[in-house]
């Protein structure tokens, strides 16, 4: 199957990743753990851009950037340099952003995603380091606010901007690219993607191989998919009506799900880039081998290994390796029970229950799932009971063994129910006759009897099914 891209869609993404797991900011010693702090409490002369302050590069940030570059199969530049990108904005305390320009730390690379027609390679143009500006908080809406407050806690946080080639052909592929990128970054342990503002997306979109439009300010992956769907539709409609697509920048209005024109090419900024005189060029080539040693096994490699080592199918292997935490969880389970059982229970059952509740794998313990799987494989409980145990642990807490006890889920209990069913039928021939004669209500009577006999330990629905089965024999 070859995806022919009927609308000639090309999508390129620029993803800003905030390296919030570094202890300090990019150019100063301020703490990066500001997320729950009062505004403007994680600041110093440097990240406030006070007169006279000078930047000093965070060595750990350089190491992380190299790590990300290597994980994205990028070339790493011999020597890197920072530039000033000059523009005015109230959240930018120095009136320029310190960023990388002609010597980004990482050059061309690639990411492999599941595309519309199987494996699809998305080129990475570059990945470079830059500082995050502060954050504006408008009192009211942006166009009708009485005032604007500025919080500089975020100012100076390390960002890695990862720029892709326009290789994605649908919003779905874009979403998969983002998911894969997030997956790789999680593996690298360089950021916490759950924190606010950890990943921000700008998208370049064109249809029918035409002029590209940049959509800015997309704050979530779901938002990215929506923004792209809208923008593609808008461009197609515009062309159908005889319009022409011009190079422009549009803002994504998350609330309304539409894109709004911000500026056209004629109004484009002239950023007047020039080398940051306060930061000397930085040699990075020598650091690469050492960083390479710290690279973990990445999702694709882990998937291959899971298939080979545990004999898993592609689907299971993929599902289990998307999130590093899930992969690690699985491997711990697989060490104790049959890996294929582990795959089924972790990937198909547990993950489903977790997704439904929007919980992460941390909500369950290896010990508990091992206990559940062992109960099933030892034929002590039914698969249905096992699912019930998992749900109970998640909803009400408790340990699987206790739940089995409390709910009487052991299979021997099945015999009690079966006996009770037999007894109820034998002791109430009239009711049986009534039911067979078409009186549906008599079934309820029989089920009630079963419940009485089992002192309520039977599952009513299960009892009903069993009575029915017996009557239909």
């Amino acid at each position, binding site marked *: 199957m070859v995806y022919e891209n009927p609308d000639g869609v090309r999508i390129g993404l620029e993803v800003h990743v905030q390296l919030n797991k570094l202890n300090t900011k990019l150019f100063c010693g301020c703490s990066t753990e500001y997320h729950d702090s009062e505004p403007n409490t994680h600041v110093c*002369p*440097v990240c*406030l*851009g*006070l*007169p*006279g*302050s*000078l*930047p*000093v*590069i965070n060595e750990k940030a350089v190491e992380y950037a190299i790590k990300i570059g290597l994980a994205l199969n990028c070339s790493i530049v011999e020597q890197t340099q920072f530039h*000033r990108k*000059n523009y*005015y904005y*109230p959240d930018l*305390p*120095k*009136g*320029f952003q310190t960023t990388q320009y002609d010597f980004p730390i990482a050059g061309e690379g690639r990411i492999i995603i599941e595309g519309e027609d199987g494996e699809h390679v998305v080129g990475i143009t570059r990945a470079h380091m830059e500082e995050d500006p502060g954050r504006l908080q408008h009192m009211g809406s942006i166009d009708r606010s009485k005032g*604007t407050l*500025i919080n500089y806690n975020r100012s100076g946080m390390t960002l890695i901007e990862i720029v892709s080639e326009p290789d994605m052909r649908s919003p779905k592929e874009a979403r998969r690219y983002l998911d894969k990128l997030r997956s790789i970054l999680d593996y690298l342990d360089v950021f916490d993607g759950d924190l606010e503002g950890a990943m921000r997306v700008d998208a370049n979109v064109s249809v029918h191989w035409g002029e590209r439009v940049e959509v800015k300010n997309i704050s979530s992956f779901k938002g990215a998919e929506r923004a792209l769907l809208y923008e593609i539709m808008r461009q197609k409609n515009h062309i159908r009506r005889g319009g022409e697509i011009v190079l422009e920048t549009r803002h994504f209005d998350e609330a309304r799900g539409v894109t709004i024109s911000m500026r056209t090419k004629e109004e484009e900024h*002239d950023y*007047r*880039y*020039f080398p940051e*005189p*306060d*930061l*000397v060029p930085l040699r990075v080539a020598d650091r690469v081998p050492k960083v390479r040693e710290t690279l973990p096994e990445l999702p694709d490699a882990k998937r291959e290994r899971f298939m080979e080592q545990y004999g898993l199918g592609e689907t299971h292997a993929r599902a289990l390796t998307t999130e590093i935490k899930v992969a690690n969880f699985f491997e711990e389970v697989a060490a104790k029970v049959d890996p294929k059982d582990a795959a089924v229970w972790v990937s198909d059952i547990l993950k489903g229950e977790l997704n439904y509740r929007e919980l992460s794998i941390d909500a369950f313990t290896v010990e508990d799932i091992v206990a559940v799987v062992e109960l099933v494989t030892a034929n002590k409980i039914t698969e249905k009971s096992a699912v019930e145990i998992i749900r109970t642990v998640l909803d009400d807490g408790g340990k699987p063994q206790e739940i089995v006890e409390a709910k009487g889920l052991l299979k021997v209990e099945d015999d009690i129910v079966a006996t009770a069913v037999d007894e109820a039928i034998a002791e109430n021939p009239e009711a049986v006759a009534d039911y067979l004669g078409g009186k549906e209500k008599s079934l309820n009577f029989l089920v009630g009897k079963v419940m009485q006999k089992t002192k309520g330990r039977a599952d009513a629905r299960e009892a009903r099914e069993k009575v029915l089965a017996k009557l239909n024999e």
Partner: protein
Amino acid sequence: MAAWTDISGIRQRIADSSAEEVTASYIETIGKSKINGFTTVSEEAINAAREIDANGHEGPLAGVPIAIKENISTKGLSTTCSSKILQGYVPPYDAHVIEKLKEAGAVIIGKTNMDEFAMGTSTESSYYGPTFNPWDMDRVPGGSSGGSAAVVAAGEVPVSLGSDTGGSVRCPAAYCGVVGLKPTYGCISRYGLISYANSLEQIGPLSTSVADIATIMDVVAGYDNRDSTSINRENTYSDALKDDVNGLKIGVPEEYFGEGIDENVEKAVWDSIAKFEDMGATYEKVSMPHTKYALASYYIIAMSEASSNLARFDGTRYGYRVEGDNWHVMASKTRAEGFGDEVKRRILLGTYALSAGYHDKYYLKALKVRTLVKQDFDKALSNVDVLMAPTMPAPAFKIGEKIDDPLSLYLADVNTVPINLAGVPSISVPCGLADGMPVGLQIIGKHFDENAIIRAAYSFEQNTDHNKARPPEVE
């Protein structure tokens, strides 16, 4: 009463009386000053001196008053770059040099006047009005560290710090008849120095004696992990205070005696070189062919960097602010009113030079010239130990004489800016008078070879009387 005392003299006075008394006497002198050299006198100075008297201090500058240029951040003490736009700005932190000075026991006595944002050669563009040259109140003290040089020349303080981007320590030192050093780029941390043109500027000391310069350097120079361009290199500058230039090889760059040089200045400098010959040195003429392009290169680089550095002054968080209906209006009005003409001129020219269509034509070309100028120095200094030339081609000019003619003002920097482009060290020492005004001899050295120029300057000072000349105008 003006008192020209060097650091050792001050320390003797402190030993004889107290740091408090010495500080108080300087503050009294400053109070009577007519030269407008200080913008702020520190209210904390007396307390700092008392502290030293009470607890004692082993530091090499214990109790020594020092004046600081308006562009070096001092915690709790107004630092405005002599600009309206920074009116009321009080830094919440000390510059690296201020920390070092305080550690050494120095008393920060006040802040000195300067050309707004260090852009100038005359200290006329200050928001606080011009500083007057103590030698002739009708003349400029030079710039941009005019305040720092004039207050030393007038005996209002023994030592001061200035900053030198294209000659801003050496020019006023020459015009006011004091010693001023522009150290090698990276020698002193710039942390806390409010940037005008980062890749060119260095903090430098001014005083009436070369020995004091070495003492200050011993305190403030050295690596600082908050300035990526500062260099880790151990050196004791006072080791260079030796009266010995026997065998010293001097290079005299012909291009520094070019068109427009004042004949009295030329004579004073050649007389000085002859004096060095008497003392056992030899000289040869050297050529530095790219000197004529240095000025253009310097101004493009400096203005480009300045246009970016001064972007942060928008009234949002500190300093002067003009309210407006929205942020754009507020920032525009603030900058329109807050900056003076020279600063606006340089911001605009720098913005132009960096803009997309002209970046290659101006900024990149200026960088290439800079490389050639550096090579001139490498080549010239490969055969000789130091270079000697006039610091300024002419003595101090009259106030107002050049203020409306920025180009002629820029031309005055012709002998100082190549040094900043190359990043080498250079010292200006008094070497005579021209029309009753001081003349500066510039001694230029190799990268991090401050000791060679300090040694030459010290020997010269020991064997001549030029540094003992005092301005007649004071009192």
